[in-house]
């Protein structure tokens, strides 16, 4: 009887093994509990895979979120007081919710928010999923198909930076996936050295660290120290590029072919968006049939730039002549203020986290592309 039981067990486990063999996953994902210590920048990978930056754990996770439903509606979504809504769901006050990033899944139009629950050292990372019916759920990471890539050159837990903090909170500011490569922007050390870490996906081998240099139009010199705040993969003149928004506030392009396998790369500064501000997020969108980039800024309204104007721009090598002055690629300052995070929702709208400057409320809104 025992032997029969074992044979049956073998047959059953063999049947299931064919469906759950990690090798069978084309992206090297395997099932299990993901040890996510923080949830920061989000990026979309191939086949709807969600990348989550874990600065505290010095790692990047790739999750199969199984978001296979398809929603083709082209209407807006709005949740007033999104911070209070998330707080109510997580059982805390809104002061204990920090929204770190927003991403819209292109299949389902589900909105993913990376959240810190709590502001203390033991803040809990949470990924919230909001569906088109405005229902909140948690994307649990304790039983999920995932892959993890450790980020090298990040200090150990006991290492102190010169200001007593780990470098990790700033070690990943944004990520972008293009054609099998995940570009990860961040600061590498206390000297504010800007790095692009380049990871193959599926994750394999070590990542390369590239020191990136641009002409800083506000500082009037070439710098490797200015941090990249936000990244956007973008095709310019039929060549793949990465558009990089810097603090204080140059906008530069890096050719993907230049970035491969290099230790040090010079980018071309195309625009100065005006000092005293940081670009927070960028998204590519179509308006009247023409490609545009929308840029959310910390101290400006949302800017709109035509991709064709970026393609025509010559690299800037001279500084602006006064504080707050812009130069280079022309842009339009739209009327949308207080916008912090953006992503394409559907053909008509861009989903955004926006602070209402009249009421102070933090809202999830939809910005109509025709008014951008």
């Amino acid at each position, binding site marked *: 009887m025992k032997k029969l039981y074992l044979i049956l067990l073998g047959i059953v486990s063999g049947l299931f093994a064919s469906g759950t063999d990690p090798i069978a996953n084309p992206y090297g994902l395997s099932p299990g509990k993901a040890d996510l210590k923080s949830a920061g920048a989000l990026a979309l990978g191939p086949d709807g895979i969600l990348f989550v930056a874990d600065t505290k754990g010095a790692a990047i996770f790739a999750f199969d979120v199984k978001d296979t439903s398809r929603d083709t509606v082209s209407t807006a979504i709005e949740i007033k007081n999104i911070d209070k809504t998330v707080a109510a*769901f997580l*059982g805390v006050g809104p002061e204990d919710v920090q929204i770190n990033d927003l991403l819209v899944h292109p299949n389902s139009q589900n909105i993913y928010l990376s959240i810190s629950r709590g502001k203390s050292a033991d803040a809990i990372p949470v990924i919230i999923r909001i569906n088109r019916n405005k229902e909140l759920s948690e994307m649990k990471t304790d039983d999920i198909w995932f892959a993890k890539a450790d980020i090298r050159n990040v200090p150990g837990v006991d290492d102190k930076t010169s200001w*007593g903090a780990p470098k990790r909170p700033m070690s990943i500011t944004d990520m972008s996936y293009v054609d099998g490569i995940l570009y990860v922007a961040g600061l590498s050390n206390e000297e504010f050295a800007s790095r692009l870490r380049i990871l193959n996906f599926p994750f394999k081998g070590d990542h390369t660290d590239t020191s990136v240099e641009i002409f800083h139009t506000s500082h009037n010199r070439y710098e490797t120290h200015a941090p990249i705040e936000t990244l956007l993969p973008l095709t310019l003149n039929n060549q793949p590029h990465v558009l990089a928004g810097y603090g204080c506030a140059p906008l530069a392009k890096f050719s993907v072919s230049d970035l491969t396998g290099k230790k040090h790369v010079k980018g071309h500064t195309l625009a100065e968006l005006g000092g005293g501000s940081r670009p927070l997020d960028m998204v590519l969108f179509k308006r009247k049939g023409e490609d545009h980039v929308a840029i959310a800024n910390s101290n400006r309204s949302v800017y709109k730039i035509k991709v064709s104007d970026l393609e025509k721009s010559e690299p800037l090598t001279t500084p602006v002549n006064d504080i707050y002055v812009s130069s280079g690629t022309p842009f339009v300052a739209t009327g949308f203020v207080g916008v912090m995070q953006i992503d394409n929702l559907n053909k008509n709208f861009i989903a955004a986290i926006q602070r209402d400057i009249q009421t102070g409320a933090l809202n999830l809104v939809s910005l109509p592309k025709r008014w951008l």
Partner: protein
Amino acid sequence: MNLCTKILQPWIVVAVFLSFVSKGVGQTIVLEFSGNKVWIKNLDEEVLHTFCRYYNKQEDWREVFPVTTAESDGEITIDGTYEVSGSTISFAPRFPFSPGVRYHAEFHTEALVNNYNEIYLPMVDPATLHLRFSVSPPMVIEPAVAAIYPSGDILPENLLKFHVYFNSSMTRGEVYDRITLKDRKGNRIEKAFLVMDQEFWDDDMKVVTVLFDPGRIKRGLRPNLEMGPALKAGEVYTLTINAGWKNIGGQKTKHIYEKHFTCVAADRESPKVESWIVVPPASAQDPLTVHFNEGLDRILLSDALRIIDSNGNAVKGEIVCNNDSSLQFLPLAPWKKSQYVVSVNPLLEDLAGNNLNRVFDEDVSSEVRQDKADASFTFFFPSAIPETNSGTVSRK
């Protein structure tokens, strides 16, 4: 931290006498909070069983037995899991209930008394049970500023940072509102500090660092040209940490902390290891003492030295700093008769951010710079009579 162990109010009970719900007249249904869960107890098992035949999904229970924050309008229920067992329903939140937050649980008894054509159940009064509860803060310690570094009151005008030490773990989001810098007339120095959303905290959230805006310190950068440096030699300043800063337990600092200091000329030289005064341990249990000729960064000092004995083994021990300008190294095991090599972390910085290899305000070239090798010195144990500069200082 497990909040369950910190709950000082273990349970609050709202009990309602419902004489009709159950077949057993006099049965008391209890809605209570204990053990980090919310409970409905003493339900009639048959009634509950019948109900579960129709409604036993998590979303059904969220309707019948919603648990919300009191602040929310009740439309959003707290993420968690409902379980039915015997005569009991429990709600376990996905994340522990948080101190300082008021919660509200309801149990709609009328849902149970709907007539499913199986059991006759008359309406009850009240139709809904309510429970308001909260958990006590895990820490009752009153948060306070424990120290501010640099500790000296004469500081260079190109000072790069202040470290503020607290006695308990604090919360983010208040650094740039609570910490201000004023001149001798009490006027606030605007845009003195580099504002970064991430804020510069240690792992325990007990030490926060504020950096002066490097753009105003470094000569030739536009902020420096437009606004000038935040600090000027010869001036007197006050760093103020205002009251009301919350720790993780929700308690606020009650006092205002002030540090008065005077600025002197900028320091644009790397720390000179050669001029340090090394006092070897007088006995096998005594510390090695190193006096610097200037103030150095308090946090980096804690990881400044690595000591190797003549066998090539690292000496385990602890660095103790009582001020910014000296440190002591206390070995875990007594010193042995040996020559010791002490290597100094080249990233050790003075108060202006100059490390052993480069000054903070240097002209950055496009070349990737190679860091120099560690500076080091040697000492012997036992030494003859402890004397100044008894260590041999060298730079490799």
